[in-house]
């Protein structure tokens, strides 16, 4: 059936042009000085150093990390119980709930973020409701808390679905064994369910952390441009100031972080001693 092998050739050519070459571009621009032609390459690491030396960039990097970490933390905190609750429903309800959680994700993120923009205004839905019970108005839009809140809204479905998947994959007989051997439900949860669902949490972290660092829409629309993150800098460097070298360097840093997180996820997922070893 070797005759079928040739069918991959067109895509391998396409893939080389559309995936490999752009990555090489990012790499080459990242490690060279501005104004290069193909013949004269001036290698430099200044593009990378910039982000760790210039105070403006350090500020943004720290803020990016802080926003992403807080967002990820709340996604786990709020998402885990939701995933756990869904996994305890009967099968039909589970399918329905998963569909209900997936549905908003298909609706453009910009559209949903735009709706939050309206609701978080000074005279928006929340402040109107708060006003009814005599509180407020509280400044919501253009605050870091609002940015984190809308990020949680946008990214928590990824976390819930990942944890839910790992919870449903779990062998339920472990739990029965635990209760037969006299473990309380809380003990069983701590010693069995939690460790076994860890791979789901880790891949959820990757899926939440990544976009939280790199999205520039939420920070612009909800933060009013005051809380820029890595995504905003890349956008500005490429589309406004035209500094492709620095932009590429930052993209490269982002790509490396992501590859590392992915590698970590794979390791946790495949490691047979994970969780099971402790039982």
């Amino acid at each position, binding site marked *: *059936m070797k*005759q*079928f*092998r040739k*069918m*991959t*050739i*067109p*895509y391998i050519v*396409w*893939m080389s*042009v*559309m*995936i*490999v070459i*752009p*990555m090489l*571009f990012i790499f080459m*621009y990242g490690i060279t000085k501005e104004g290069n032609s193909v013949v004269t390459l001036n290698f430099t690491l200044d593009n990378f150093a910039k982000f760790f030396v210039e105070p403006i960039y350090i500020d943004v990097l720290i803020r990016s990390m802080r926003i992403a970490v807080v967002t990820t933390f709340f996604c786990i905190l709020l998402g885990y*119980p*939701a995933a*756990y*609750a869904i996994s*305890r429903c009967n099968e039909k309800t589970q399918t329905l*709930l998963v*569909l*209900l*959680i*997936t*549905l*908003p994700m298909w*609706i*453009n*993120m*910009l*559209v949903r973020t*735009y*709706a*939050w*923009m*309206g*609701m978080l205004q000074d005279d928006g*839905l929340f402040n*109107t409701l708060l006003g009814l019970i005599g509180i407020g108005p509280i400044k919501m839009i253009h605050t870091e808390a609002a940015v984190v809140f809308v990020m949680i*809204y946008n990214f928590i*479905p990824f976390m819930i679905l990942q944890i839910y998947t790992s919870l449903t994959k779990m062998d*339920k007989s472990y*739990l029965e064994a635990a209760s037969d051997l006299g473990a309380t439900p809380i003990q069983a949860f701590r010693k069995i369910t939690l460790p076994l669902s860890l791979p789901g949490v880790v891949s959820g972290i990757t899926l939440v952390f*990544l976009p939280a660092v790199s999205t520039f829409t939420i920070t612009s*629309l909800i933060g009013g441009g005051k809380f820029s993150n890595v995504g905003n800098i*890349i*956008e500005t460097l*490429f589309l406004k100031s035209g500094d*492709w070298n620095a932009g*590429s360097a930052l*993209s490269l840093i982002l*790509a490396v972080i*992501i*590859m590392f997180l*992915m590698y970590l996820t794979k390791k946790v997922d495949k490691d047979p001693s994970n969780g099971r070893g402790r039982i």
Partner: protein
Amino acid sequence: MKKKKQPIFNIYIVLMLIFFYLPIIYTIFFSFNETKSLTHFSGFSLRWYEKMFADRTMMEAIWYTFIIAIIATVVSTVVGTITAIGLSKSKRIVQNLVEQINNLPIMNPEIVTAVGLLMLFASIKGIEKGFVTLLLAHIMFCIPYVILSVTPKLRTLDPNLTEAAMDLGATPWQALTKVIVPQIMPGIVSGALIAFTMSFDDFVISYFVTGNGVNNISTLVWTMSKRINPSINALSTIIIVIITIGLILANVVPLLKDKKEKKRI
């Protein structure tokens, strides 16, 4: 083990769902608002829908979004399926290599893929930012998802069937269209669905590679969202309705099919 009913979990799920659907309901609600306000509902009107349909840039954006999503879906489904079949018969090393490279656009943050494509298109003389670059970019990020959803179906395929067909005198083309493709059809369909929604919804990559006034719905919403414009709500409502119908169809049709088949048995 007996599960105890815990109402606290049910309440939590309901709260979560309210949280998820609040902005969507809000959008739909305010698309029918009489005034420009996004905070006070003053009366029912279809004013923003009329305005939307009269707005040429909006209609153009809708047109571009659909035409690009359709072409990108067709091309990426055909190419992705062909490639996945070819890969399943290729050497392990080729499989791994293609798989790894394929994973790059899936794993990388969208913005990294976007700037890479921006620089690629800028380096090619004679290619102008606009429809062509938008379409090429969409095809590029759709194909990996098609391959990803077709490949598992190919793994479960019995290779003897194809061999038997060819031993019995089928040409490779016949073996492909009569034996392999029908068996992996569910994978192809779900791949096409993913491709369509990915293309339909994409903002980041489109934003970086488009130009010369060519907008899709997402990039248009982005440019309009800097100022209050309730037409966005009208447009969003239409998108929400289309996607909801699409998803319900995609989920209900297979269920109905299953039932029919069960009845036949």
